[in-house]
C-alpha cells in the first residue's frame, strides 16, 4: 500500500518537475547571489571605508571638518594637509630611511629564511624534528617575552666576553641598526619563523627528480640549490619578500626597540599628533591647544602617506601576495 503511494507521488512530482524544479532552482540561485552580493559588498565597504574616509578628510580644510553638511566631498579643497604632515613627519627623510631599511632587512631575512627553509625541506639530518619544533617555537613565542632581555643584551653587547677583554667595556649597540641586522641574519626578525615555514612548505611540494638528476650529473649541493631550486621557488620567495617588506614598513615593535633614533615612517606616524603640537608651538611661539579636527586631519593624511606606497605595491603585486599562500598548501 504505502510503497505504491510513494511511487505515485514521486512520479507525480517528476511529471511537474521538468518546469517547477528548474524555476525553483533558478530562484534559489538568484536569491543566494543577491544575498551574497549584499553581504560581501557590506563587508568590503566595512574594510575600505576607513581608507576612503581618510582620503576625503585629508583633502578638507579645517572649516569643512566642522561643517555638518560636508560629509565626504570637501567644499574647500586643499592639499595643505599633505604639506603639513610631510613637514611634521620629516617625510622625505623618513621615507628614504624606511625604504632602505625595509628593503635591506627584507632581502636579508628572505635570503636566510630561504636557505633554512630549503634545508628543512630537502635534507635528512639528525635532530631535524627537534630543530623544526624550535622553528615552531619561534613562531609561537611572542617577541615581547624576550624583548626586555634583548634590550639589555644589546645595551651591554658582548660576544663571549671578547669585546670586554679588548676594550675593557661592553658595547652599547642601542640606537644602532646593527643589532637588528644581526637578528635578521639569524632568522629572528619579525615573523621570520613564518617565512621559514612557508618556504619549507613550498620546497616540499617540488618533485625530487630534478635535484637527483643534478646530483647524478655531478652538480654540488649548493649549486643545485642556486641553479635549480631557487628559480623554481621564485613565487614563494617573491611573496615572502613582499610580506617582509610590508610588515617591516609598518612595524612598530622592532623599530621602536632597535631603530629608535632613526626617523622611520612607522615610528613618526605613531607620534604625529604630539609632533603636531610641538610644531605648532615652535611656529607660533606659544603653547596652543590643537583642535581635534585638525589633529584628525593630519593623522589621516599621515596615515595615508604611510600606507600609500604599500597600497600601490599591493595593487601591482596582489597576485603574489594572495596566490602563493594558497598554493603553498599549509598543513599541520
Amino acid at each position: 500500500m504505502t510503497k505504491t503511494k510513494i511511487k505515485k507521488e514521486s512520479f507525480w512530482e517528476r511529471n511537474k518537475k521538468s518546469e517547477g524544479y528548474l524555476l525553483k532552482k533558478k530562484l534559489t540561485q538568484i536569491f543566494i547571489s543577491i544575498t551574497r552580493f549584499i553581504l560581501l559588498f557590506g563587508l568590503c565597504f566595512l574594510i575600505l571605508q576607513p581608507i576612503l574616509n581618510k582620503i576625503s578628510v585629508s583633502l578638507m580644510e579645517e572649516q569643512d571638518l566642522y561643517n555638518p553638511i560636508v560629509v565626504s566631498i570637501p567644499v574647500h579643497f586643499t592639499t595643505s594637509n599633505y604639506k603639513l604632515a610631510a613637514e611634521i613627519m620629516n617625510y622625505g627623510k623618513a621615507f628614504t630611511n624606511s625604504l632602505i631599511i625595509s628593503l635591506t632587512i627584507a632581502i636579508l631575512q628572505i635570503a636566510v629564511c630561504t636557505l633554512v627553509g630549503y634545508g628543512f625541506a630537502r635534507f635528512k639530518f639528525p635532530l631535524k624534528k627537534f630543530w623544526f619544533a624550535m622553528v615552531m617555537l619561534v613562531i609561537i613565542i611572542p617577541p615581547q617575552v624576550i624583548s626586555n632581555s634583548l634590550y639589555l643584551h644589546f645595551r651591554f653587547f658582548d660576544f663571549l666576553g671578547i669585546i670586554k677583554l679588548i676594550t675593557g667595556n661592553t658595547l652599547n649597540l642601542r640606537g644602532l641598526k646593527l643589532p637588528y641586522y644581526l637578528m635578521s641574519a639569524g632568522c629572528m626578525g619579525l615573523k621570520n619563523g613564518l617565512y621559514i615555514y612557508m618556504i619549507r612548505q613550498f620546497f616540499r611540494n617540488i618533485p625530487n627528480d630534478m635535484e637527483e638528476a643534478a646530483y647524478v650529473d655531478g652538480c654540488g649541493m649548493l649549486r643545485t640549490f642556486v641553479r635549480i631550486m631557487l628559480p623554481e621557488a621564485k613565487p614563494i620567495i617573491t611573496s615572502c619578500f613582499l610580506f617582509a617588506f610590508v610588515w617591516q614598513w609598518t612595524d612598530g615593535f622592532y623599530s621602536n626597540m632597535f631603530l629608535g633614533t632613526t626617523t622611520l615612517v612607522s615610528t613618526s606616524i605613531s607620534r604625529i599628533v604630539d609632533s603636531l603640537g610641538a610644531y605648532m608651538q615652535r611656529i607660533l611661539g606659544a603653547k596652543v591647544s590643537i583642535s581635534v579636527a585638525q589633529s584628525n586631519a593630519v593623522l589621516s593624511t599621515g596615515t595615508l602617506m604611510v600606507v600609500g606606497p604599500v597600497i600601490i605595491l599591493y595593487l601591482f603585486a596582489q597576485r603574489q601576495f594572495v596566490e602563493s599562500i594558497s598554493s603553498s598548501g599549509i598543513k599541520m
Partner: protein
Amino acid sequence: MDKKPKHRYVGLEKRKAIAGYLFILPFIIGFAFFMVKPFFQSLYMSFNTVELGAGKFDMIWNGFGNYVYAFRTDPEYARLLTEELLRMLVYSLAIIVFSFFVALILNQKFHGRALVRAVFFLPVILSSGVMLGLESNNSLIASLQQQVEEVTTGISITDGLQTILRTTGVGVRAFEKVFEVIDNIYDVALASGMQIIIFLSGLQTIPKSMYEAADIEGCTAWESLWKITFPSISSLFLVNWIYTVVDFCMRSDNELVEKLQKVMIQNQNYGASAAMTWTYFLIVIAFIGITSLLLNKVVYYND
C-alpha cells in the same frame, strides 16, 4: 649485537646531513644567541631586581618579589591581564568563525571574486604594525570618538536586539560579549585576512567530485558542509587557531603589551616587566597547548 641497528649516516647521506646542517646553520646560530639566551635570561631576570650601572647591569636575587609586585602592588596589571585574556578568547573564536564563513563564500564562483579576495586580504597589509590602533592611541581623537559614540548610541547594529534581550534578562553577560563582537565586526574583519586565505587554500584542495557524489546520493548542502568540508579542513582550524592567538599577542593595540613596554622603557623596572611578561606568556602558552590538544582530538587527518 643489537638487532635493530641505529640509523647511520654514511656516504652521500652523511654529506647530505652535513649540508642540511649548513643550510639551517643561520637559524641555529640566531636561535642560540637571540632566542635561547634572552629567553632564559628574561626568565632569570623575572626573579631578580635589575640595576643598571655604567657599562653593566647587576641582578639582585629577589625570589618571587617581582611576581608579587605585578599582582599585588601594580594597580593595572591584574586587571589588564584578565581583560586581555578574555578579549583574546572571545575575539579569536569570533575571528575563526568569521574567517571560515567568509572563506566558504569566497570559495564559490561569482563575478568579481578576485576583487573581493583582494579587499579581504588588504587588512593583512594595512592593519599590521603601528597602523592598528593609531586612532585609539591618540588621546585627542579617542575622546572625540567617545563623544561620537555617546551621541550615536542608537546606531549600534545590535541595539534593538540588545534592549529586548536585556529586559528579559537571560544570560546578560554572555549576550553582551556576543554583542560586543558584532559591534566590533570591523576589528574582527581586519584581523582575519590571513586566516581567510589559509582556509581558502584548504577549501580549494577538496575535490569537486566529492560534493557531486554527495549531491547525487541526496546529501543536502548543510550535510555536506559538516560531512565533507569540515573534516577536510579541520587541521586548518588548528593552524588558524594558533596563528590567531599568537597574532593577538603581538597586536599593537593590545593594552597589556603597551603596559609591559611602559614598565620596561619608562619605569626601567626590568625585573617586574619580565615577571609580567612571563606570567602572560605562560598563560598564553598553556592556553594554546590545552586548546590545541582539545582541537587535535577532533581534527581528522586524511593521511
